[in-house]
């Protein structure tokens, strides 16, 4: 049982000044799980991602990945440990080509050295080719290979989101953290994204944690959902349980008497 537990987050908290952005957040992801993290705007979802990936250091609590404690590790060390992410407000390398964006992320498993690059060692050429092939493979998988030499900044929005996923995959992660991958996508793209996320999990044996506002996507693909409001977990369970949970409904729609009005508004 515990051998199957891949990501084990136990009671992490962080405050900024007097504001408790996330308090006592716990999450257990068994290997292969596809889980969702939802909550109203400002609930602290992205802060949780930043805590997991080491952008912020947690004030309390522990984060374990495959039994290894990640607390105190820098973001690049956590990436090396197997934690990859995408960003809500896309953070590609905008002036570099699509291919280079992915090739940079292959860097973790490369064994290159500065001298090897300067003197152009035999290993350098071999590795350079392997990295390029591997990156192209990922781009093909995400249907971006015909855009490989374009600057990342020139891609349409949906392609940029998928490029972020390709780049995260290139780091060879165990756990993939997706921060609102469907944001800005049209219904067709959203349908494709669901299939994509499922197929990536199968293909790479990934464990995925997903922040998403689009309930259609979340309820469809996630096996377990954690709901966050004001930095506190207010519910955890299967999509069906979450949809029925009064606390979740309240967090999203307000108190019961307000809920009626809001529901009416939605219906129109």
């Amino acid at each position: 049982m515990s051998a199957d537990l891949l990501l084990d987050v136990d009671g992490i908290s962080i405050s900024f000044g007097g504001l408790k952005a996330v308090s006592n957040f716990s999450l257990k992801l068994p290997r292969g799980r596809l889980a969702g993290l939802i909550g109203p705007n400002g609930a602290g979802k992205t802060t949780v991602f930043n805590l997991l990936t080491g952008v912020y250091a947690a004030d309390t609590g522990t984060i374990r990945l495959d039994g290894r404690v990640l607390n105190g590790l820098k973001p690049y060390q956590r990436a090396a440990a197997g934690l990859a992410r995408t960003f809500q407000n896309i953070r590609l390398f905008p002036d570099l080509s699509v291919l280079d964006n992915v090739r940079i992320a292959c860097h973790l498993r490369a064994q290159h050295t500065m001298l090897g690059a300067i003197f152009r060692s035999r290993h350098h050429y071999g590795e350079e080719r392997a990295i390029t092939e591997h990156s192209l493979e990922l781009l093909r998988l995400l249907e971006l290979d015909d855009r490989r030499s374009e600057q990342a900044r020139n891609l349409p929005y949906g392609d940029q989101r998928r490029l972020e996923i390709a780049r995260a995959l290139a780091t060879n992660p165990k756990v993939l953290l997706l921060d609102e991958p469907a944001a800005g996508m049209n219904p067709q793209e959203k349908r494709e994204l669901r299939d994509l996320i499922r197929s990536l999990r199968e293909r790479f044996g990934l464990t995925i944690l997903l922040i998403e506002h689009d309930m259609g996507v979340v309820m469809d693909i996630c096996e377990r959902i954690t709901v966050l409001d004001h930095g506190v977990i207010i519910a955890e369970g299967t999509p069906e349980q979450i949809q029925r949970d009064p606390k979740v409904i309240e967090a999203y729609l307000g108190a019961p008497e307000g809920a009626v009005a809001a529901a009416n508004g939605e219906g129109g």
Partner: protein
Amino acid sequence: MGMERETDRMNAQALELRPPAGVVLARSLLPVLGAVGLAVVLQLLIKPMLGDFYAKLLLDIGTNIILAVSLTMVNGFTGQFSIGHAGFMAVGAYTAAAIVYYGSHRIWGDALVHGGLLSTMFPGHQAPLVTGADLLFFAALIAGGVVAAICGYLVGLPSLRLKGDYLAIVTLGFGEVIRVLLESQTTEALWDPEQIAATPLYELPRYLGGALGFSGLPFYSSLFWAWLGAGITLLVAYRLKESSYGRAFLSIREDEIAAEAMGVHTTRYKVRAFVLAAFFAGVAGGIFAHTVGVQLNPRELGFQKSFDILIMVVLGGLGSISGAAIAAAGLTVLPELLRQPPTIMGWPLAVIIPVVVIWVLLSRRPVRTAVGLVLALAAWEAMRWFARERGINLSEYRMVLYALALIVIMIVRPQGLLGIREIWELRRPRRLAAAKETAATGESGRAGGEVSL
């Protein structure tokens, strides 16, 4: 488990895809031999044809290319802002100077030129191609680079851990500290061979001329050394930029947070770029110190010099190796041209017309570029005409005109001459621009879809 398997697969593939050793050796060495060949040709064939003035100008261009391209590795590749490059140049210059000066005294009893044909700018120099003094000079250049690189490490390690403008402040401070340290030393430079022989080795670095400058250095810097240095600096910069190792530098410039999230140890990479840049700045300093007409003086290597280098990098386009090199050449020539602005009519047209044609052909907006270049040339002639009519001596306004030219260029091309591209990549954006348009319309279409949801 899956991770190990994947990594193994890529490494196994890398092993499989290695080209034959002979091919690698050729591809690795040929450009280096090319650089050596170019430097030899410049020194032995081109220099005699140029005359003293233009040969010296070409030498300065070579030195400045080393400086600008090395600073590009920090400011252009990793996007950090170093403004103390002359400090590393000073460290390299004084290290090399001390080794050459006191080394020569110990070996030959004087610090006259003992170099061969490759290490002299004097036309009538009688010597074999290479002598022992050349090796001493070469060793001194490398030593200067290494000491500068060590300083780079000591300065870079604490300041590059921090994000933001700390590096700018620290490097500026470093440059000034070096200058003040050198100026505050004794103004004595030993010249008596017996005294030098009697002074222990570790005492010698105290006698570097202080604020008066370190005079009496032999002039070993030649087109060969400056352009060999420039060629190798260009090669190293290019090979870094075109490798997965070097692309990690670029990722820091592009987005430091994303780079970290992708596993790039940003501090380590920044420090390495910084150390490498400091090494080349040190080598350039060594070449500068032994250049004809230069009297090594701490004031020459103050923040003014740092800014000169920085301007070359920014003007060329932050991140563009070829841009930095072109700007280095242009900004070395411009102040000299402004001394006695020559007419562009007549033989300069033989140079100007091909440059204009190539520039226009490479340009993304050829018409605009053509109009701009013709206007610039017309402005040059108008300036000459105006000065002649009013009897103004333009050379008095040299630095004003120089500054004016910089301002105009930065207004016309705020991203620098080449932006982040290399000169051979300039035509590429045409296709990208078309893609951008479809991207923009696609995006607005999607945004519309989003609203209706």
